[in-house]
């Protein structure tokens, strides 16, 4: 035990000495949390929509006012004689609403008045949001103004659970928190381990009295400490800037966090033991930690949207389970019944990583 702690202390000293790695460990995750949550969010506000009013009547003005009042749309001016599509191809607006002549007359006569909405669908998701918002504005307008409007027989009372404000930060915050933990601690661990074999200091380890498990556990413990430090810093941000709080029983999250830091620290050590050069180890972790957790863990988009040919990979992506646990603890509050097997999976994957790293260490001696 004493030897494990000594080994861990040695690692931590090495981290503190290099400003680059220290900043990487503590500052970068916070910066990433703020930036990425902004860079991934899909809930849009104030989308520019151009209105071409060919009628110019009182009715058309009332109709445009309904769009002006919308929070998600932002009416921008567009000349009546301008080509409507030009507003889209010049990126001046995301959609153009065209009110035809005789709009007001048709409405007064009780005829259905068609209005065209041209949506820039080069961004398919935003296009769906725009057309959904616009049709909600129009149906509200119809309900309020049309005499012949019929009450719909079946009405839905929609309740949004867990995130009634539809804040995308509350969804992406926990995800990017997991991404940070999955990336930076293993990066540092891999660098430290690859350094031992690059600088041949691993030979000193072999001649010392420390056993392989003690050496590895010391390393893993040090990077678990780094990861837990990140957890503290980033969750401070989650609870303040992102406005999250525990939705239910926090114990699954606490247990899973400790296991997950073990898992990622072992992953880093494993890569460092297998890949002899620091630069290559860095790329391997960046690829494994970042690409897998970023793309195949449900961080941004639901896993069921991934094509089936590669979807199965997400079952062994460790970050996936942790993301689900964090989201459950901070948003849904399902507690142990909802997540117990996910905690178990993290423990199993972590143990596998550790054993592989241990086997990799035996090879390091031969290579050194």
């Amino acid at each position, binding site marked *: 035990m004493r030897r494990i702690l000594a080994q861990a202390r040695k690692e931590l000293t090495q981290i503190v000495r290099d400003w*680059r790695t220290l900043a*990487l460990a503590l500052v*970068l995750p916070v*910066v*990433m949390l703020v*930036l990425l949550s*902004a*860079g991934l*969010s*899909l809930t849009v506000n*104030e989308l520019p929509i151009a209105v071409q009013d060919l009628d110019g009547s009182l009715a058309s003005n009332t109709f445009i006012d309904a769009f002006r009042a919308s929070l998600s749309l932002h009416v921008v001016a567009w000349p009546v004689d301008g080509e409507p*599509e030009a507003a889209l*191809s*010049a*990126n001046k607006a995301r959609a153009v609403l065209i009110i035809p002549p005789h709009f007001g007359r*048709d*409405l007064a006569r009780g*005829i*259905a008045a068609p*209005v*065209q*909405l*041209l*949506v820039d*669908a080069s961004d*398919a*998701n*935003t296009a*769906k*949001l725009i057309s*959904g918002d616009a049709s909600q504005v129009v149906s509200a*307008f*119809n*309900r309020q103004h*049309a005499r*012949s409007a019929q*009450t*719909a*027989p*079946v*009405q839905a009372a929609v*309740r949004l659970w*867990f*995130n009634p404000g539809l804040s*995308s930060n509350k*969804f992406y915050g926990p995800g990017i928190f997991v991404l940070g933990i999955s990336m930076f601690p293993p990066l540092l661990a891999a660098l430290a381990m690859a350094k031992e074999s690059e600088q041949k200091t691993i030979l000193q380890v072999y001649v010392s009295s420390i056993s392989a498990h003690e050496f590895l556990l010391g390393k893993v413990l040090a990077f678990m400490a780094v990861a837990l430090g990140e957890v503290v810093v980033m969750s401070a941000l989650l609870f303040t800037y992102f406005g999250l709080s525990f939705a239910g029983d926090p114990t699954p999250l606490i247990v899973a966090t400790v296991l997950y830091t073990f898992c990622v620290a072992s992953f880093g050590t494993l890569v460092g033991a297998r890949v002899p050069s*620091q630069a290559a180890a860095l790329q391997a972790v*960046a690829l494994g930690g970042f690409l897998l957790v970023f*793309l195949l863990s449900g961080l*941004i*988009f*639901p896993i*069921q*949207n*991934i*094509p089936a040919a*590669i979807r199965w990979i997400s079952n062994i992506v460790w970050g996936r389970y942790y993301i689900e646990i964090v989201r459950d603890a901070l948003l*849904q509050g*399902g507690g142990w019944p*909802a997540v117990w097997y996910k905690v178990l999976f993290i423990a199993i994957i972590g143990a596998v990583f550790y054993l592989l790293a241990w086997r990799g260490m035996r090879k390091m001696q031969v290579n050194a």
Partner: protein
Amino acid sequence: MIVRLRSILARVFSYRMAALVRKEFGQIRRDRRLQISLVLPPVLQLTLFGFALSANVTNIRLAVVDDSHSPESRELISTMTQSRAFRLAGSYLSASQLGDAVSRGDADAGLVIPYDYARDLVRHRPATVQLLLNATNANTATISRGYALGVLQTYNAALLQQGIHVQAVPVGSSDPSLGGQVDLQPAFLFNPGLVDSWFIVTGVLGLLLILNSSLVSSAAMVREREAGTIEQLLMSPASTTEIILAKIAPLFFLLSLMMLVAIGVIRFIFHVPFHGGVLPLFLGGLLCILSGISLGTVIATFSRSAQQAQLTSFFVNPPLSSLSGALNPVEAMPHWLQPLTVFNPVHHFATIVRSSMLKGSGFADIWPNFLALFLFTFVLVALSVWRFRKQLS
């Protein structure tokens, strides 16, 4: 002037220059990792991002509580689950059981039909059903709410046709001044099939060009320094300009080939149409590569080893990629961050690519983005040459 120009040209195409370029090519040929990072990222990242990042909302798991147990309620359930958007994930006996299922993650949405549903409809009273949505993912929730309301609207229209009219006293201060209804007819331009991947891959192209160029060039630039051969280069008769040019030219050539591969993937795997000319695309891409190379060079001048250079790029890449609007619309960012995208070359390139490929815009529409991209490239190249010269001397 002409004499001066000629002397510069003579220097550029000199024997010395050719030898230096050949040396760089030789070094790249022997560096396996560099070669891999020229071919693998364009193919792998584009296909992975393009296929895996899809905001499409289909197969929402709908849990149902049917307290009405009537033909009418069963019809509503089957109308909901017949659409591609929803599929039935189970029936529950009470609303609290359904709530548990949603928080356990067994269902994404819940529909509660009250016991008086059929009776209300028969008596021409409006019936209200409850729709619960797991709104953890705000985007999915917004879209699935739209789907659900759309399905309900169609269902209502069918009911009205069957002659089920309801009378309701209007609530609030409505102003029934107009006779007719507004009929909104949306048309989706440029991407009528609403293919998600078109947006993603055109954004990833810009990220790829700048980030990969900077990665490759910083690795190539730092190598001389790491190996200590930079002094030998300085001792040679080659001038600093020649050294820099000879370093950049081969990388520029190879990265341009990478761009062609990437554009091929976009065109032939994702079937993104080319509505505009290819000229804006290529020109913008070359500017991007150049600014990426310059960025890598600047990073390399601040680092002593390849590993340090890579670590430094961890500080540069996240803001560059997340504040670009490459993977999401700029309007989705917080207000205080939106102006920063103006200073991001990736943002301008993504706009150029999407405008010229999908919308068919010409230079007349996107010249501001070109100007911005050109300015960035110019500043970055100047900065990198200055840093590199300083390091050499």
